[in-house]
């Protein structure tokens, strides 16, 4: 860990810089309001921004979004771009849960049409979508051959087996599959862990939330996305499950050796990395792509199961329900992208760990339907308050490698949150907040209660004020299922 004191200079209303010092190759930059920064000054996350700045081939700045908090290796909320020729790839900059992400589904319904059936609806969702530790069995166990096809095809694998529709694929980053995937690089353990977990939420901060549109900030953008006041929407937050965690773990062993082989000095062992242009780097990118594709297939199956629950409980037709995907974002990933660096267009590898891509209007990598408004960005809050939909901007391309925040960000350790929750009746508290909650583990709920998180509104406001992304709509949760 970098030991130098953290020197912090304010360079904008919501922008702070850590000048180059020690072994930092570039400065660090943190997007945060004064209030959010005040909460970070004693936190190890700023030191983690400095650590990332020490890695070979980093370009521009080591960045952090306003939901930054102490992670392992990279801070959560960290963004860093690396030159393709001289730079590195670090699994610690992607995380264990590769392609953890969020998808937002719209319906034709307003909340008053489902209000009386919320309990049945949440029971049905909880029964059809396995959650919690080792959750499995949403769909019949697949064979190893099928799993390898899934790892190459991503969300398409699910659509072709009846989980969702062809048009869903257009509303995901990369159309729901990274082409670099090579399933032959996956370990037996990773494959074994993936066999039974397709269509499962898992534990921790993952959830499925039924929400209602509470406020619209930009009407034309909301209309383009098919959103209207009081509308029922569904947010799904999960990732690549055990297969992804195992892929990260497998790669860390290789990376530790590679760092020695390529003489890369590491300020934190969790930042173990390898040159992008090395066999180890290429293998990681191909394995990471498999896990990313698994995550897209996972969220696709969950969405399809959720549609079944709505149809069964409400007794309406698919046409009346209008369950369709608005967008699906990744917030733990590394991608090769084109960006402007010191006035020239360069292809770089952008690591986003707890950060979301936020490409501007007109960008060729966003769906044609959204090309006039910019890429939708989904920012869940804690399970009791609200979540946001934003759109990406040109400012994001100039200032943050086309990236923005991904969530509220924790302010409290899990142990501390549990201590506070001891005096709370979790069920009563969720009822008080107007949320029908179904969950497997009381301990997980206690760790994830709203008091453990920053107010996501403060995070989103910072990004809106800096022009990095613009607020389009806010959703209020009315039902949640968790592990």
């Amino acid at each position, binding site marked *: *860990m970098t030991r130098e004191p953290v020197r912090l200079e304010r360079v904008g209303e919501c922008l702070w810089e850590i000048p180059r010092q020690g072994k930092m190759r570039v400065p660090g930059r943190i997007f945060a309001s004064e209030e959010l920064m005040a909460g970070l000054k004693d*936190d190890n*996350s700023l030191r983690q921004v400095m650590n990332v700045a020490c890695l070979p081939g980093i370009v521009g700045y080591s960045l952090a979004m306003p939901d930054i*908090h*102490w*992670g*392992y*290796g990279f801070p*959560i909320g960290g963004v860093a771009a690396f030159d393709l020729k001289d730079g590195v790839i670090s699994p*610690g900059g992607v*995380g*264990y*849960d590769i392609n953890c992400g969020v998808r937002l589904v719209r319906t034709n319904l307003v909340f008053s049409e489902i209000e009386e059936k919320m309990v049945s609806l949440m029971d049905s969702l909880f029964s059809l979508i396995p959650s*919690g*530790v*080792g959750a499995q069995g949403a769909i019949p166990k697949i064979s190893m051959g099928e799993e390898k096809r899934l790892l190459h095809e991503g969300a398409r694998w699910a659509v072709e087996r009846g989980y969702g529709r062809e048009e869903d694929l257009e509303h995901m980053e990369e159309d729901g599959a990274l082409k670099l995937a090579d399933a032959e690089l996956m370990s037996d*353990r990773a494959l*074994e*862990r993936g066999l039974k977990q397709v269509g499962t939420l*898992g*534990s*921790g901060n993952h959830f499925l939330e039924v929400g209602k549109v509470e406020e619209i900030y930009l009407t034309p953008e909301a209309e383009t996305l098919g959103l209207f006041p009081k509308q029922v929407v569904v947010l799904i937050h999960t990732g690549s499950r*055990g297969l992804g*965690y*195992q892929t*990260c*773990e497998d790669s*860390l062993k290789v990376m*530790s050796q590679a760092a020695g082989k390529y003489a890369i000095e590491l300020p*934190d*062992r*969790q930042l*173990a990395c390898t040159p992008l242009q090395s066999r180890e780097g290429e293998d990681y990118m191909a394995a990471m792509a498999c896990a990313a594709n698994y995550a897209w297939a996972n969220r696709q199956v969950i969405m399809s199961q959720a549609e079944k629950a709505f149809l069964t409980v409400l007794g309406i037709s698919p046409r009346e329900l209008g369950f369709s995907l608005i967008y699906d974002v990744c917030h733990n990933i590394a991608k090769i992208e084109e960006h402007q660096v010191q006035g020239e267009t360069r292809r770089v590898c952008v690591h986003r760990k707890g950060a979301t891509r936020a490409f501007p209007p007109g960008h060729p990598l966003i769906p044609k339907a959204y090309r006039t408004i910019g890429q939708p960005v989904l920012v869940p809050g804690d399970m009791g308050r609200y979540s946001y939909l934003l759109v990406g901007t040109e400012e994001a391309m100039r200032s943050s490698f086309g990236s923005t925040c991904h969530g509220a960000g*924790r*302010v*409290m*350790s*899990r*142990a*501390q949150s549990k201590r506070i929750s001891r005096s709370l009746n979790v069920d009563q508290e969720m009822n008080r907040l107007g949320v029908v909650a179904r969950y*497997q*583990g009381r*301990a*997980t709920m206690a*760790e994830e209660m709203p008091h453990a998180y920053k107010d996501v509104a403060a995070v989103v406001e910072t990004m809106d004020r800096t022009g990095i992304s613009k607020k389009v709509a806010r959703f209020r949760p009315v039902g949640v299922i968790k*592990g």
Partner: protein
Amino acid sequence: MATREIEHTADIGIEVEASDLPTLFSSGGEALYGLLVDINGVRPKEEVVVSVTGEGWEELFHAWLRELLAQFNLSGFVGRQCEIKNIREGRVEGLVRGERLDLKRHCFYTEIKGVTYHDFRVWKENDHWWARVIFDV
């Protein structure tokens, strides 16, 4: 021997102190299980032999925890007691007594995604062994 939880914003960490290396490894393993479930409710019905290799005590300790977590993730096996049968530079062999996770009987706490290297240390101080490890949850 003592184990304490480290306050970490997003994840969970433990610090273990032991009078010798076998106790460090057995206590570290039991502490890991204690983060997953309430081990008071776990019966020592089955025995699983866990053997791992790793260069240096740090790498060996990391590999030991990784393997225990892998056994849990692959077969649902959760330990109540860890007994170190053999430990030497580069290799540890332990016997873990426990049973398969049963959510109807066991009080499950949290899913652990991985054993991180962030701020990870194994060291000796004043004739005692210490380990510090943060888990991704």
